[in-house]
C-alpha cells in the first residue's frame, strides 16, 4: 500500500469532477489531506438541473452533490469562495488570492469552463443579462423573472442550455423567444431530424424559435433591452440569457507550461505532462480509445469517469479511461438521451415506435459502423445503443428501421 499519510492532494474546482474525485480518492485508500478549492461560494451542487428543474423549484439544497456531513465524514476539506491565482510547479504550491499558498503533493485541475459572452455591441450594458452556468446565474435569472411584470425573455443561442432554459422559463409564465444564428437549432450536435423535432416541440409549447437570426446589437434604456438582429428585426426583452457556448478555463495550467490543445491535454490516466498534476472534467483534452481521437467533452459522464481514473492513478491502481460518452437533456416532458459521438456520420436511421406517446430514436452511422444514438423518450434505444457501440456491433439497418421488429439485443443483427 502506497504511504500517503503525510501527503496533500489539492483539487482546484469543486465541480462534479472535483467532488467525485475527492470521494473516489478516499475510496481508493488515500490517507493524506484532500483539499478542494472553488471560487463558487455555494456547497458543491449538480449543474445539469440548473437549466432544467432548478429554475422552477429553486431549491439548491436538494441539488447538492453531497451533504456537508459527507465531506466531514471522509475528511475532505472544502475551501469555497476563494480563488486560486497561480500554480508553482517547482515547489509544488498553489497561490490563493489574498490567502497565501497551499502545498501539494498531487494537484488536480478541475477548472471546467466559463460561458462565452460574444462581442455583441451593447451586451456589457444590457439590463438583466445572464449566462447560465452557475447556481448564482440560475438564482439571478429566477429573481429577475419573479420581479419582472411582462417577463419577456430573449435567449441568444439554440443549443441545449438555451433550449432547456427556454422550456423551464416557459413553465414560470415567461414569454420566451430563442434567437439562433445557424439555420437550425442544435446544428452542431444533432441531425436535422432532431433539430426539427425540438423546433416543433418548442413551438407547440408556445416558445418562439427564430433561426438564421444573428444578434447584431443590444440597446438598453431605463432597464428595458431591445435586441436587434442582422435583418433589422428587433425584440424587446426584460431579460436576456446568453447560451452560445463556453471557453475552457485553461489559464492556470497554460501559464505554467502544462500542455494545452483545445483543453488541458491529459493521458489515459487523466495525467498532464507534469506527473504530479492531473486534470479532469470539461477542461481536459483527452484521448477516447473507442473513437480513436482526442476530444473535449462537456458532460457529467466525462467528469465522473475521469474522476475515477485520476483517483485510481494517484493511488497506484491500474485504471484507464475507456468509455463511450453519454448525455441527456430534459425539455418539457420529453427526455432525450444520447450516447456516442455522431461527428463524421454519413447515414442516419430514424426509428419511430408505434406507441401512443412520442418515442423515437436516431441512429448515426459512418458506413456500417454505429457512431451514436439519440433517443427521445426511449430508454431502450439508449441502453441498446450503448451496448452496440461498445461492442462494435454490426447492425442490420433494414431490421432496425422496421418497428414491427421489437427492440432487443439480438433482433437487429
Amino acid at each position, binding site marked *: 500500500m502506497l504511504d500517503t499519510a503525510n501527503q496533500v492532494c489539492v483539487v482546484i474546482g469543486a465541480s462534479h469532477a472535483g467532488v467525485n474525485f475527492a470521494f473516489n480518492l478516499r475510496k481508493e485508500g488515500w490517507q493524506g489531506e484532500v483539499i478542494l478549492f472553488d471560487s463558487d461560494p455555494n456547497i458543491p451542487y449538480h449543474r445539469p438541473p440548473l437549466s432544467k428543474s432548478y429554475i422552477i423549484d429553486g431549491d439548491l439544497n436538494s441539488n447538492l452533490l453531497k451533504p456537508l456531513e459527507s465531506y466531514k465524514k471522509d475528511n475532505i476539506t472544502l475551501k469555497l469562495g476563494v480563488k486560486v491565482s497561480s500554480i508553482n510547479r517547482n515547489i509544488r504550491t498553489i497561490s490563493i488570492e489574498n490567502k497565501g499558498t497551499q502545498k501539494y503533493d498531487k494537484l488536480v485541475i478541475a477548472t471546467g469552463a466559463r460561458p462565452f459572452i460574444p462581442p455583441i455591441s451593447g451586451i456589457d450594458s444590457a439590463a438583466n443579462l445572464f449566462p447560465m452556468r452557475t447556481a448564482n446565474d440560475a438564482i439571478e435569472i429566477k429573481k429577475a423573472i419573479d420581479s419582472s411584470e411582462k417577463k419577456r425573455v430573449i435567449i441568444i443561442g439554440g443549443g441545449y442550455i438555451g433550449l432547456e432554459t427556454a422550456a423551464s422559463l416557459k413553465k414560470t409564465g415567461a414569454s420566451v423567444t430563442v434567437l439562433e444564428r445557424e439555420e437550425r437549432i442544435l446544428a452542431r450536435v444533432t441531425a436535422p431530424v432532431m433539430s426539427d423535432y425540438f423546433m416543433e416541440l418548442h413551438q407547440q409549447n408556445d416558445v418562439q424559435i427564430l433561426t438564421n437570426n444573428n444578434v447584431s446589437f443590444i440597446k438598453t434604456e431605463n432597464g428595458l433591452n431591445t435586441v436587434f438582429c442582422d435583418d433589422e428585426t428587433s425584440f424587446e426583452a426584460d431579460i436576456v440569457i446568453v447560451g452560445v457556448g463556453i471557453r475552457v478555463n485553461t489559464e492556470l495550467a497554460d501559464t505554467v507550461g502544462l500542455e494545452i490543445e483545445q483543453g488541458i491535454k491529459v493521458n489515459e490516466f487523466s495525467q498532464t505532462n507534469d506527473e504530479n498534476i492531473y486534470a479532469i472534467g470539461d477542461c481536459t483534452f483527452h484521448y477516447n480509445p473507442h473513437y480513436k481521437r482526442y476530444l473535449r467533452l462537456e458532460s457529467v459522464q466525462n467528469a465522473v469517469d475521469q474522476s475515477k481514473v485520476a483517483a485510481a492513478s494517484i493511488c497506484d491502481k491500474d485504471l484507464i479511461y475507456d468509455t463511450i460518452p453519454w448525455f*441527456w437533456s430534459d425539455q418539457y416532458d420529453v427526455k432525450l438521451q444520447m450516447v456516442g459521438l455522431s461527428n463524421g456520420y454519413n447515414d442516419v436511421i430514424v426509428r419511430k415506435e408505434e406507441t401512443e406517446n412520442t418515442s423515437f430514436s436516431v441512429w448515426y452511422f459512418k458506413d456500417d459502423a454505429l457512431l451514436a444514438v439519440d433517443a427521445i423518450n426511449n430508454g431502450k434505444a439508449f441502453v*441498446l445503443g450503448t451496448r452496440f457501440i461498445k461492442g462494435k456491433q454490426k447492425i442490420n439497418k433494414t431490421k432496425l428501421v422496421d418497428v414491427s421488429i421489437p427492440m432487443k439485443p439480438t433482433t437487429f443483427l
Partner: protein
Amino acid sequence: MAKITFITADNESITVEGTSGSVMELAVNNNIKGIDGDCGGVCSCATCHVHVESEFVAKTGQAEELENDMLEFDDLTNEYSRLSCQLQVSEDLDGVVFKVAK
C-alpha cells in the same frame, strides 16, 4: 422517518435513516458503494440500480416505463430490479432492504 438497509456487493449491510428525497440520494449521502446517481436522479444513467428484497416488493410498487426501459437489457436486472432514484423515501419504506446491484 424511515430506516432503510442497503446490502452492498461486498455483503456489507448498512442501515440509514431518511425522511425525504429519493432512495438514491439517501444512498449517495451515506456513501453506499455501488450507488453513484451520476445524473442526479432523473432516470438517465442507471447508476443507482438496486434489487428490492422480495418481501418488500409491495412497499416499493411498480416501475414506470422509462425506468423499465433503462433496466430491461441490463445483465444485472432481475424481477426485483429498481432504479433507486425513482423511489421516494417515506415512512412507507421503513424497514425495506435493498441489495445494491453493482
